[in-house]
């Protein structure tokens, strides 16, 4: 009767198993979002309330004075902290959009940064281009946003329709190629439009005053929170829809999707456009927050960073991308502080040299997460619940060692 007794955990175990056994297919840690039928009735409500509470909590943060030494640079109402948190949330929004493409649809793109950059540079250039126009500045601001959005969609459609003609690594490389072209273009500074390697600075003539200056950082914080919530809702909506399910199925077995009469291309195209447009929206937020854009956000390295963030957070979980974005940004910031600290300076060279390189620590941490936490940070609760200490592959290794 052991079989019956194990039924409860079987579902989780098999779900987890599938995550590993499909490793050789398109995604490593495939989503393990299966919930039991009984639990699913109550959970949406709990999640909804929890989600709203979280958003409200984040929204009133600038009005509070919470200080987490070592994590935040100062109390939560200070501009420095709000800036950092806003930046983290925009990166989280970007990561979320990337997760939809990579985690859900299995589209491993190396060019996601292109769309983020398109949002940032697009809005920056639109604002500059509109600058002398005699319209009211609110209208110019909104008009620029709209123009950038349209630009993002068109760019996504163009790149998507070409890149999606191939799959797998080839897809990754075509997207990389486009992103590289974009990056080169931005660095070349055609007609002085992008500022080249010096970056683009925001022309604030037509930007609402409420979004300019350190004193208004909390408005920018709310803007970033808004972007994150918006991206989350869109991603949630798409993932829950039939299109989302087909995308997941396509990731698993594309031929089979065709054989049941669905054209996978449509769904992949849709996901690509939505994810890319969301990235562009996050990019616009970034331009406003930073009062400028640097060519760094168009590079392949930046896409790799997003990939790292998504995996760090947990590919299988939507909120993993958010957690990853926030943890990564905070770590990046704090490790820099650590690297410059007297404590590190006092260590012997063997320890000092590596520890004073923030990227070394981040890279190492990332490796450890991939090796020992296959579900990422968001997967930790699941691992504790299912009580599995080891990944099946590890035990397999152990078995033949």
């Amino acid at each position, binding site marked *: 009767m052991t079989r019956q007794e194990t039924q409860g955990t079987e579902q989780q175990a098999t779900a987890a198993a599938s995550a*590993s056994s499909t*490793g*050789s297919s*398109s*995604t*490593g*840690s495939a989503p393990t979002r299966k919930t039991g039928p009984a639990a699913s009735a109550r959970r949406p409500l709990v999640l909804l309330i929890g989600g709203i509470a979280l958003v409200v909590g984040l929204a009133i943060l600038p009005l509070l004075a919470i200080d987490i030494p070592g994590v935040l640079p100062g109390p939560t109402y200070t501009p420095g902290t709000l800036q950092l948190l806003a930046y983290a949330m925009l990166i989280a929004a970007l990561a979320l959009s990337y997760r939809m493409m990579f985690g859900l649809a299995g589209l*491993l793109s190396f060019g996601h940064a292109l769309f983020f950059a398109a949002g940032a540079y697009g809005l920056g250039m639109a604002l500059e281009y509109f600058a002398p126009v005699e319209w009211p500045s609110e209208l110019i601001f909104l008009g620029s946003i709209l123009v950038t959005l349209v630009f993002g969609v068109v760019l996504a459609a163009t790149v998507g329709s*070409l890149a999606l*003609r*191939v*799959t797998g*690594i*080839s897809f990754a*490389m*075509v997207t*990389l*190629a*486009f992103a*590289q*072209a974009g990056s*080169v273009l931005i660095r070349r500074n055609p007609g002085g439009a992008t500022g080249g390697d010096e970056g683009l600075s925001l022309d604030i003539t037509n930007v609402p005053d409420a979004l300019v200056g350190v004193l208004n950082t909390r408005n920018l914080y709310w803007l970033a929170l808004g972007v994150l919530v918006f991206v989350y809702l869109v991603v949630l909506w798409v993932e829950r829809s039939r299109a989302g399910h087909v995308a997941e199925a396509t990731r698993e077995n594309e031929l089979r999707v065709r054989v049941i009469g669905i054209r996978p291309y449509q769904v992949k195209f849709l996901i690509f456009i939505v994810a890319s447009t969301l990235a562009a929206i996050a990019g616009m937020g970034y331009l406003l927050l930073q009062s400028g854009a640097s060519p760094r956000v168009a590079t*392949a390295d930046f896409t*790799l960073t997003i*990939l*790292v963030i998504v*995996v760090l957070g947990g590919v299988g979980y939507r909120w993993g991308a958010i957690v990853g974005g926030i943890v990564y940004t905070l770590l990046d910031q704090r490790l820099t502080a650590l690297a410059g600290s007297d404590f590190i300076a006092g260590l012997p060279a063997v320890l000092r*040299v*590596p520890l*004073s*390189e*923030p*990227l*070394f*620590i*981040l*890279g*190492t941490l*990332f*490796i450890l997460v*991939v*090796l020992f936490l*296959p579900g990422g940070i968001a997967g930790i609760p699941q691992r504790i619940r299912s009580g599995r200490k080891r990944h099946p*592959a*590890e035990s*397999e*290794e152990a078995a*033949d060692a």
Partner: protein
Amino acid sequence: MSTVLLLVITGLGLGALYFLVASGLSLIYGLMGVLNFAHGSFLTIAAFIGWEVGRRVSDGTWWGLLISALVGMIVGAVVAAATEYFLIRRLYERHIEQALITVGLGLATVALFEGIWGTDPIYTAKPEWLSQTTEILGAKIPNDRFLLIACAALVLVGIVLFLQRTRYGLIIRAGVENRSMVTALGIDVRRSFTIVFAIGGAAAGLGGVLASVYYGYVSAHLGSVLLIFAFIVTVIGGLGSLTGAAIASVLVAVLQQFANYYWGAGDFVVVIALAAVLLIRPRGLMGKVA
């Protein structure tokens, strides 16, 4: 005329360098399905240690260069094998995670090299002959290009022979497809994979030392510069096809030379070539039919 010849031969030299990096990349990808983002780091560490040893033995001489090359190959092989043994192996056939590990490793090691050797390039000396030129039909060709071309050709032939003539080649090709079944035929497949990594690492190591000759410096970013082109070449050539990578290396490099010279847009042209090749022939020039 002499300009065209110059462009072609220097293109070949650059292509040779691309190939030295791409060969290991292609080998590792083709046989193990691992897209190795740490390959640039194998190259860099080999270049650094090769240089450190070479200059202590005899700086700027053939003898010193030979020592550097040998040390570089050994370092590349050892580091790559260690990477496989300690990191890649644990992730049993989960290719995406394996690639991610190498991404992390690439990030971490570049930072580490910066910590050890600093952020500035370190300029290196080379044997006198290599800094001279040979005149062919009016074009003054830098001599080190010939060295690069010769080494790349040797590496190509060597690896192809290894894969075709040895039982290891067979095991490796089978292991890519179904590792547990190879084990079930009584073969210790893990050792073969370590060997693949070591060979790829050795090629990268040689590439690293030669790259430092070509560029005239070593720096923490030596590998990253070449890696992206190596990726492109690998993909254009057809993932896993060594001869494809060789052909693509030459085509891309020569194309790049001409485009850079005449339109100042070499990198654009390479990118467009990549997109075009993949859209017309998704498997690349010489890719195997799935």
